[in-house]
């Protein structure tokens, strides 16, 4: 046991560096996903014709293909046509694009779950559709989307581990490096796992507190509910 803990302490600095990269990737990808995902949700929900079709096409293609494939396509595939991205950019882009499709669907679900009467009442007050979406629908959608969105945040930290496949030095990659140096694969992976569990639990706790802070009567939804 003591030997294990000593081993952990010896590899912790490297793993810590990896964790920082993992978290950076997560934040970048989530932000990218939000910026692209929200317009996609609006386009799919309120858009017409080509705009709507593009959004549906985008979302369904991304949700229908594996994350790894998307990553490889962006990193190796685009290099084929002369678009060479550095590893971290490629990882954030791939994770972000992937996340955007899911975030779009969370937002769409939230928007669709808002009673039609809200839009009607806003229009009856003289708001334009655009005003109603901005002032009435989106503020509610943002709150409703919080539980699935925080799930996305938590999963994103996990998903960043795929970046190791294009040699981004995140947590998983650090683990593999340590394995090839120490030849202690099971012990190393155990400790990598422990870090993921602790970090994700911490994030879940923080998210809980935030959700509690911004909650409004009538909007209670728990994250684990399906």
């Amino acid at each position, binding site marked *: 046991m003591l030997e294990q803990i000593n081993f952990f302490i010896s590899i912790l600095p490297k793993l810590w560096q990896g964790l920082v990269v993992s978290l950076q990737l997560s934040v970048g990808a989530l932000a990218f996903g939000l910026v692209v995902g929200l317009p996609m949700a609006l386009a799919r929900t309120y858009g017409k014709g080509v705009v709507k079709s593009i959004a549906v096409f985008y979302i369904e293609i991304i949700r229908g293909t594996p994350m790894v494939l998307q990553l490889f396509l962006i990193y190796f595939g685009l290099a084929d046509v002369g678009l060479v991205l550095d590893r971290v950019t490629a990882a954030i882009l791939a994770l972000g694009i992937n996340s955007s499709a899911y975030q779009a669907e969370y937002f769409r679900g939230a928007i669709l779950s808002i*009673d039609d*009467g*809200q839009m*009607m*009442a*806003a*229009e*009856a*007050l*003289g*708001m*334009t559709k655009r*005003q109603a979406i901005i*002032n*009435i629908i989106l*503020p*509610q959608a943002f*709150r409703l989307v919080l539980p699935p969105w925080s799930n996305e945040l938590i999963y994103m930290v996990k998903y960043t581990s795929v970046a190791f496949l294009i040699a981004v030095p995140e947590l998983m990659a650090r683990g593999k490096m340590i394995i090839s140096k120490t030849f202690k694969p099971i012990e190393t992976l155990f400790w990598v796992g422990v870090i993921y569990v602790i970090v994700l639990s911490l994030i879940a706790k923080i998210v809980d507190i935030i959700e509690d802070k911004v909650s*409004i*009567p*009538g*909007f209670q939804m728990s994250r684990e509910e399906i």
Partner: protein
Amino acid sequence: MKESSGSQVYDIKVINRKVNNMTKPILRIQNLHKKFGSSEVLKGLNLTVDEGEVVVIIGPSGTGKSTLLRCINRLETPDSGEIYLEDQKIEHGKTNLSRMRQKIGMVFQDFNLFNHLTAIQNVAIGPVKVKKIDKAKAMKAAERELERVGLKDKANSYPAELSGGQKQRVAIARALAMEPKVMLFDEPTSALDPELTGEVLAVMKDLAKAGMTMVVVSHEMGFAREAAHRIVFLEDGIVSEMGSPEKIFNNPEKQRTREFISKITSLSGEGSA
């Protein structure tokens, strides 16, 4: 000014309005048609509402009462026909529609309070976002409107924390805050428990007394007797009969009106007068 009992009073009320020369038409509906799929709900409906008049619309379900209201502020688009508010045509086109809707207050059956806003924010959001009124001013005004419906103490409650009757009163305050020329009520008490309808009807009666032009779809016969200047019996997509409450309740011309009135008064436990 207005008495609430004695059947003669109603005719006097109508006469008074005429004598006082208050019969300026404010809302004119001409030859309104609306189809949903293959079923025609409104079949060339005509109706004129005078300024300060309280019109209660009754009729069997599915005869287009709600559709009529929703056509007036264009939540539904009529297939044909014209609607004029203060001689201005209500039609599509962004600026016109928003301007007209600002002049028409709407109270829904199921309240439709904005769930993410407190009572006072619900009342203030229209003036702030649509009329672009200064926020502090709008909040002050909203407070007055809430006071008017007796809910000043609930200003900071969210819709989920209010009873049905309270929600509906906030919804009325929200519509009033836009200072509308006409108020439309779409079965405002039918989603409420019986013991909660009273508080909403009281607010509506006050509003009627204050001279607000009101078009009310409701089967609250007590309210109709007391506050209506005119009752419109809608059937089969057109105005089948209308007149003072006195006439409609006691001496309707048509057999169908008589049957409907007697059915509805016996259902609501009121003896016909």
